[in-house]
């Protein structure tokens, strides 16, 4: 439907659109930085792996050539080779050209990406705040508006962020201690 300032448009030709579920994700697993997945009806679609585009957490996952019945793609990686994945439940977006997006089948479980905090470069400081410290871990989003870090109940100010490291300023705290 098309509306202009709330007024529905009239149809003067062929205006119907039919949604078709041509394929869906039937399996999903992660090993290191490789995502393995299957799609339903792979042979009847008459496609090759080059017809498939995959996005995971907003980043392209490069589809590897191979059997259309056992698909894999390579996730983008951090400098240490670990995959760039954001904490939470991951269902990749699988686009099949020219059919559209294959949604997850009913039996497919999302991949759970943990939020890991490993260390703080400086873990003690004055309660006036403003101390610069580096948080190391994994599962951090690449956009600092998608994460909140509170210390002593107050929001820390994030200076920079990557999937495995956050540089932040400590907030003020009205008390001392942990």
């Amino acid at each position, binding site marked *: 439907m098309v509306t202009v300032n709330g007024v529905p448009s009239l149809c003067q030709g062929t205006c119907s659109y039919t949604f078709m579920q041509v394929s869906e994700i039937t399996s999903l697993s992660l090993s290191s930085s490789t995502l393995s997945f299957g799609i339903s009806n792979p042979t009847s679609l008459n496609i090759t792996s080059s017809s498939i585009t995959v996005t995971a957490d907003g980043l392209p996952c490069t589809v590897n050539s191979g059997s259309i019945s056992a698909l894999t793609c390579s996730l983008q990686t951090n400098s240490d080779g670990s995959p760039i994945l*954001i*904490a*939470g439940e991951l269902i990749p977006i699988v686009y099949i050209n020219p059919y559209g997006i294959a949604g997850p089948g009913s039996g497919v479980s999302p991949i759970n990406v*943990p*939020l*890991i*905090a490993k*260390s*703080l470069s400086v*873990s*003690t*400081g*004055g*309660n*006036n*705040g403003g101390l610069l*410290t580096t*948080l190391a*871990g994994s*599962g*951090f*989003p690449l956009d600092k508006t*998608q*994460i*909140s*870090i*509170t*210390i*002593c109940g107050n929001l820390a*100010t994030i200076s920079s962020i990557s999937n495995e490291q956050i540089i932040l300023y*400590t907030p003020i*705290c009205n*008390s*001392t*201690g*942990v």
Partner: protein
Amino acid sequence: MNIQVGAVSNTNLSFTYTDGSATAPKISSLSPSSSNPAKKGVLNITGSGFGTNSSQVNVFLANSSGKIYQLSILKITDTLM
């Protein structure tokens, strides 16, 4: 420390606060105390404990939206920047 990403959180790490009043630099006044954001100018900060080495001091202004601006230090003494 509480880290929150969507519905996922992590509280494994902690940060220990110490009494910062003894060592913190203190600000007693700013001049001017307000200014047109479109206009560059000089801000005088009076206080104590600033030191004399500008490379060890960072000065920031934050607006009400949380956007942080770093200022350049033109001159520093222990009581005036």
